[in-house]
């Protein structure tokens, strides 16, 4: 079973998305800010990370940069979650080292497809 780390500060959205992923058969761990996300990625070694971009303490871009700079976590695919469907968001996310990008509100079938593509890549 694949393990996904969901880093999201909004309680409702964290709860909602983790429930939906659980129903699809994934194991889900959650973190509520960028610092916690980096710490958990290092200790838990998930198969994939879903990273909200506007996070407190350490934002999603900086958290991703740290993960991609560390040899221990570099290989874990990161999908950025952002609020707007704009080219700059995408460039910024990919520039930080995210492997893919999805806008909110989430279209679950599309997100699942991206998750599976990245999991297969490993």
């Amino acid at each position, binding site marked *: 079973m694949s393990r996904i780390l969901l880093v999201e500060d909004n309680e409702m*959205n964290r709860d*909602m998305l983790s*429930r939906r992923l659980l*129903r699809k058969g994934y194991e889900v761990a959650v973190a509520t800010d960028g610092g916690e996300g980096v710490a958990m990625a290092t200790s838990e070694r998930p198969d994939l990370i879903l990273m909200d971009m506007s996070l407190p303490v350490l934002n999603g871009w900086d958290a991703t940069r740290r993960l991609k700079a560390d040899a221990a976590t570099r290989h874990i695919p990161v999908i950025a979650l952002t609020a707007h*469907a*704009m080219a700059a968001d995408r460039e910024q996310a990919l520039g930080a080292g995210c492997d893919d990008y999805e*806008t909110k*509100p*989430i279209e679950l079938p599309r997100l699942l497809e991206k998750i599976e593509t990245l999991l297969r890549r490993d």
Partner: protein
Amino acid sequence: MAAGAIDPRLAAIAERVRHVVGPATASISAAAAALAAAPNSQDVADEIARIGIAAGQLVEMVEGGAPALGDDGGIEAACSRLRHDLRTPLVALKGYGELVLEIAADEHLDGVTRELGRLLEGVAEVMVAIERALPAPSRAMAAEDHGEGLPPLHPSLRGRILIADDSQANRDILVQYLGREGHEVAAVADGLSALDLVMEQPFDLVLLDMIMPGMNGDEVLKAIKAEPRLRLLPVIMISALDAVDRIVHCIEAGAEDYLPKPFNRVLLRARIGACLEKKRLREIELAYLRAVESELTIAHEVQQSILPKGFPPHRALAGHGLMVPARDIGGDFYDFFVLDDDHIGIALGDVSGKGIPAAVYMAMVRTQLRATASFGLAPAECLARLNQHLAADNPSAMFVSLFFGIVDCVSGVVTYANGGHNPPILVRADGTTEWVPGTGDLLVGVLPDSDYHEAGLALAPGDALLVYSDGVVEAVGPADAVFGEARLASVLSGMADRSPAALADGVLAVVRNFEAGQPASDDLTCVAIRFLGAPTTATANSHQEAP
């Protein structure tokens, strides 16, 4: 600005949000309340409770928008924050709504599905309303993509575009952008609606999101390409960049191009423009082809009309001719002309090549032969003069194989010349067949000074003569079998008692049957005559042919 005081511009924005977004949020609240009271709701009580909380947050934010706005970083930043904050409960509402819908489907909780539908519709409406009330991101998008200041589109590159994307935000961005470019735009949220719409309305281009509920973009694409009427309608797939395999499949299945998400205005404009331009050129091409087709149809009618309408009525000679071109128009022809009371001329020619050049040359040959024969010249002299005319000025190096015979309707003697044409075949009244000997002369129109010689044959009463083009004997059947002269002779010996029309039609039918549905490669022409002999009474002409 003093603490606690509210910038009047922010107050105006808050008021606009209340006014524009408020009504739609009210319908979400109503749906959430109805959902909590719906049958089966206890089975998903936790999720429904959270839907209620998110709906409450949304209403509170819309109603009390101004304090949340603040004034850090100016109006733009405030709007952007409000936009983000308003969308947060919507993300939860959509997510929980879809989650409960999934659970309801799995566990047959039909009682909640109607209210969930209303809730999700409400969410979509609020998204649109937020775009209307706080339209900042489209400006941001323009600036980021350097799309501002693009020259206006040429009117011929504007078209009617259908967008199918289940994401309201994507639809809004595309509708707004393409509308500004001068396109006429329609948008739907799922694949089936897209298919319905392209069936009933004309579009120049369809943008299909790859992943949609119900019917995915690639399935809609396949359905469009399977419909003959819509096959030429260009389709651009909208897809995340990483779905390369699916993009490749779609392009193989007939998609014109793809657009990666998120959208880049310059790329969007270039790809849509290229698609519309291609479609425009294809339409010009099709219109041209249709015009050529219609001219060919007319040419076919003109050509058939210059062939004789029927055989000249004569009490001692019956005849019939037919010409079936391999394409719309052909290079074969036949002709009958009355030279005097008892002499009828019969000609059959086959011009080199096929199609339009052959047809034009055929019309010229037929006219010149008529003119030459009308002087009452013998067949060999006719061919010699015709040859002289044709060979003298023949830059396209065309030529004609030509049989020309004059029938003496009293004696039954046929005097003929044959310029390189297939040997005609005699069908005696008793069913025996004889090939008519050639005169060893060249095709007409090749060399200026060719000689032509005459020969004769005698028809007894009841005998028939068949003159034909190589479309008969060179017809090709399955496995490359060739019809051949032997088969023609054997077919004709079984038709000795038939009228000339039945002979000619019979040969055509046998050849077509032999070809077994394969398209004919050459024009097919037959002329059949039957000598009836000197009449014993005045009623003998009842045998005469009336084709």
